[in-house]
């Protein structure tokens, strides 16, 4: 008999509310987006108003006639209208003096592509909302089509691998940094292997949304789209962080900082080899991806260093 731990890990302290979602739902087995979604009201409470649009979460977030899969107050949007609808709701509650946390939850396809205009507009107006984007690097609900968050060389159903093409031909947008360059209160990246980091950021986003726009970009690799085993999602998230493919950072009132420093980053090859959608990659492509990962990390590091003085200045 092994000695039992005295108390559950600290991350469980963040879960102030029980799961607001019904037990069995339509998410695929092993889906990290499901974990992303269920965690939100556990940390933020059940009095939030959530919004979503057609995406992987929609079959669970939207009701079916009278029935619903969760107990939250909810507003279903069209893909072009998530951040804008949230702005309207948030402004109305502000007008009548009610303190309500409004949370948008969409995939990367909506945040990057068809819903980017309202997202950018709401961010520029520093609307008091939380926008959580779960990034499974494609339009997964409709069958793994590419989005502008799909990385270069990824095999998807609209960027297949064949004689004339080796997956996606263009580099992905890096939305978290784009959002951080808007005049917003808070931006963070998070993933499911680092649950305490994610929970902290959810709580921070809730607080910051009382003063302005809070954006969280969650890396949630799709089991089917990434061609991984149903038990592999957490491991893929962990490797994404360890290789600096998906660094964990936050920007709060203009100050950038890493929330997880990876002392000795693994070569990105170790992340790419876990994902079936990259199985056709050869040395030159892998080197190219490594270069991009390194450059992106340097850029973030430069931002952290440049804004560190701002933080110390404000503290003195």
């Amino acid at each position: 008999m092994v000695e039992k731990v005295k108390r559950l890990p600290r991350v469980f302290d963040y879960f102030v509310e029980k799961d607001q979602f019904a037990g069995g739902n339509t998410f695929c087995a092993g889906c990290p987006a499901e974990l992303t979604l269920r965690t939100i009201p556990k940390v933020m409470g059940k009095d939030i108003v959530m919004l979503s649009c057609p995406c992987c979460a929609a079959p669970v977030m939207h009701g079916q006639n009278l029935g619903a899969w969760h107990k939250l107050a909810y507003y279903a949007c069209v893909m072009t209208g998530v951040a804008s609808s949230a702005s309207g709701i948030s402004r109305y509650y502000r007008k009548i003096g009610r303190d309500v946390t409004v949370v948008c939850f969409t995939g990367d396809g909506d945040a990057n592509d068809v819903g980017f205009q309202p997202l950018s507009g709401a961010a520029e107006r520093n609307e008091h909302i939380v926008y959580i984007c779960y990034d499974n690097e494609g339009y997964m609900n409709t069958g793994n089509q590419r989005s502008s968050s799909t990385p270069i060389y990824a095999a998807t159903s609209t960027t297949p691998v064949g004689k004339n093409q080796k997956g996606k031909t263009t580099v992905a947008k890096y939305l978290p940094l784009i959002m951080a360059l808007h005049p917003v209160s808070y931006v963070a990246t998070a993933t499911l292997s680092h649950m305490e980091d994610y929970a902290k950021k959810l709580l921070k986003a809730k607080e910051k949304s009382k003063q302005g726009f809070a954006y969280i970009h969650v890396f949630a690799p799709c089991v089917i789209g990434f061609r991984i085993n149903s038990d592999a999602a957490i491991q893929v998230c962990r490797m994404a962080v360890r290789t600096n493919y998906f660094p964990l950072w936050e920007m709060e009132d203009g100050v950038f900082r890493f929330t997880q420093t990876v002392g000795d980053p693994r070569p990105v090859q170790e992340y790419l080899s876990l994902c079936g959608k990259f199985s056709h990659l050869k040395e030159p492509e892998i080197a190219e991806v490594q270069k991009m990962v390194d450059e992106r990390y340097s850029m973030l590091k430069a931002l952290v260093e440049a804004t560190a003085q701002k933080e110390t200045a404000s503290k003195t």
Partner: protein
Amino acid sequence: MKKLTYPYESCWSNADELLLYLETGTWRTSRPKVDKEKCNYCGLCALYCPPQCMIDKGDHFEPNLEFCKGCGICARECPRKAITMVREE
């Protein structure tokens, strides 16, 4: 007379009236088996379970087999290798 059974003028769902659930337990091809002797009650299986179906039994966790989809994340993430995925009959 028309037969109108839906209670509202526009499409609202009401979880207090009807909370839906799928018997996702019927999806799985293997189920998690927890070895209580090896489990140190660290909680990581409950933390990482996507449908959050790990039930706290006080000194170990056990899956709610009504909803468990058999993804295997709990077995993979358990630091003590206390969970094994066993084929369903």
